[in-house]
């Protein structure tokens, strides 16, 4: 029984949060990795693109809520998502047209594009703050839980509860759908294959008649969709605060690099590696340990690292990977 309690406690406090956080990181890292694979630079504005997407969706959600629209147990934000994606796509396409394209045509060094993306980051960040402010915004509605801790305890008779937040479940389901769609698109459609070809060998893609501007445009639209979905899911699961998205930049880049920059499978794997490590290492195992070794009464929290140092975890993994396998777990570069 105690073993079961330990497992449930572990699942409740480590596995579930890590899975939903991992899905959010994976979606974010996919966006970063696609930009890297096709446009060949590290986009530092990605966190703020996510914030913008979430903001656009929140505005749509508020409007729908004001109109009295609701999705029952599901969050209304799902209905507003397409509009949020469209708004974000418009923003990134405009940015590409006004900012990035100039440097692409001049074949500027990637590091210049990274600095340019810093400027875009400032502007997007300012834009988000300008429209919605810096404060925390809550926009989750619908059912809070699929199963609460109390219900679970009554159901199983265990002392530990397993609470499944509906947003966590939603995150995982949406992430799976999005990833499946993405891979279907990249591996099965002509356009998707042409994007992989472009990412693999730009000159040969040109010789094959693949239109680079079209590939770039579709990439931005997909990145906008990925960023918006990641941003909204993160906002639903935790809460929306513009600055939090900027702070996601480090774990997201860590995920993409750990998996191998430019490799979508790697981005997903990296997201989960980072998320699981962060949650496991900063979780206080006192409870779990108490069930497993009843005789042991630990003094502290049995926590390897305080949660304030979760960045240190992504960072340490990143450094280890960079030192021992610089191309990432899944060889990076091509899409």
């Amino acid at each position, binding site marked *: 029984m105690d073993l079961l309690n330990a497992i449930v406690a572990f699942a409740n406090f480590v596995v579930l949060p890590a899975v939903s956080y991992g899905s959010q990181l994976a979606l974010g890292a996919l966006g970063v990795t696609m930009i890297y694979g096709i446009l060949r630079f590290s986009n530092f504005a990605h966190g703020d693109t996510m914030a913008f997407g979430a903001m656009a969706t929140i505005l749509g959600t508020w409007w729908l809520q004001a109109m009295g629209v609701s999705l029952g147990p599901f969050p209304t934000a799902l209905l507003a998502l397409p509009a949020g994606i469209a708004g974000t796509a418009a923003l990134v396409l405009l940015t590409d047209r006004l900012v990035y394209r100039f440097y692409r045509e001049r074949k500027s060094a990637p590091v210049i594009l990274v600095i340019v993306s810093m400027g875009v980051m400032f502007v997007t960040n300012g834009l988000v703050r300008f429209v919605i402010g810096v404060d925390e915004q809550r926009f989750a509605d619908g059912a809070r839980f699929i199963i609460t801790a109390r219900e679970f305890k009554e159901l199983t008779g265990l002392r530990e509860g397993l609470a499944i937040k509906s947003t966590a479940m939603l995150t995982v389901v949406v992430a799976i759908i999005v990833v499946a769609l993405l891979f279907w698109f990249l591996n099965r459609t*002509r356009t998707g*294959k*042409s994007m*992989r*070809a472009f990412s*693999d*060998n730009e*000159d*040969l*893609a*040109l*010789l*094959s*008649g*693949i239109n680079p501007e079209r590939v770039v445009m579709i990439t931005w639209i997909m990145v906008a969709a990925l960023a918006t979905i990641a941003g909204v899911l993160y906002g639903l699961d935790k809460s929306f605060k513009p600055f939090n998205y900027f702070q996601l930049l480090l774990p997201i880049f860590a995920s993409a690099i750990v998996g191998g920059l430019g490799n979508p499978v790697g981005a997903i794997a990296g997201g989960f590696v980072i998320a699981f490590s962060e949650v496991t290492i900063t979780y206080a195992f006192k409870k779990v340990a108490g069930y497993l070794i009843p005789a042991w009464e630990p003094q502290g929290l049995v926590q390897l690292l305080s949660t304030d140092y979760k960045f240190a975890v992504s960072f340490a993994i990143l450094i280890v990977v960079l030192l021992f396998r610089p191309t990432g777990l899944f060889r990076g*570069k*091509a*899409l």
Partner: protein
Amino acid sequence: MSDPFLIGDSLSGGYGRGVDILHSCTISVNEGEIAVIVGPNGAGKSTAMKAVFGMLDLHEGSVSLGGEDISHLSPQDRVAKGMAFVPQNSNTFTSLTVEENLEMGAFLRRDDISGTMAQVYELFPALREKRRQTAGELSGGQRQQVAVGRALMTQPRVLMLDEPTAGVSPVVMDELFDRIIEVARTGISILMVEQNARQALEIADTGYVMVQGRNAFTDTGEALLADPEVRRSFLGG
């Protein structure tokens, strides 16, 4: 004999604003024939072919294909006109499967490509077996086959090959030359730059020996092989 199918006539130019690499160089190939450009290192062989393909800044001369002047067209537009180019290096999408490589070759086509693909597989049976493998996993010779196959997928009228046998073993080279002859028999003109001058001239209808960006000798492959001066200077006796 009528005008050649593809001709780069008295081409002069270089990369960007740099010095001229080509000096009034003429390269042409007839329908269904094989033309080979040979010469010492740095003679401008590849440059001459790239000039024909529109990858060079020309200030003199013209390129025409099937009687149409295409001097002003970009390489991409020339692909659409029926020219296919196989670069010397990175000529496959290494992370894509063999089949996807071929599909990308046919990217501009809107019609059914399965027929052409079957022809490519017939030409290179090894590729059919490995069509689900990524091109990066193949051997050097098979990767060259993928590269040629990708170019053939556009159903080109002219196939341009930049040193297709660089870095492959002599056996593979002979095999590849046989396939190239087969391709030419289907009516596709072949323009090829080759390091292995003797073998290349053996299969060439026309041979161009280039020296320092200029035409040094131009004749049939056979005649060039027989020419004592060419033999002494370029074929090692």
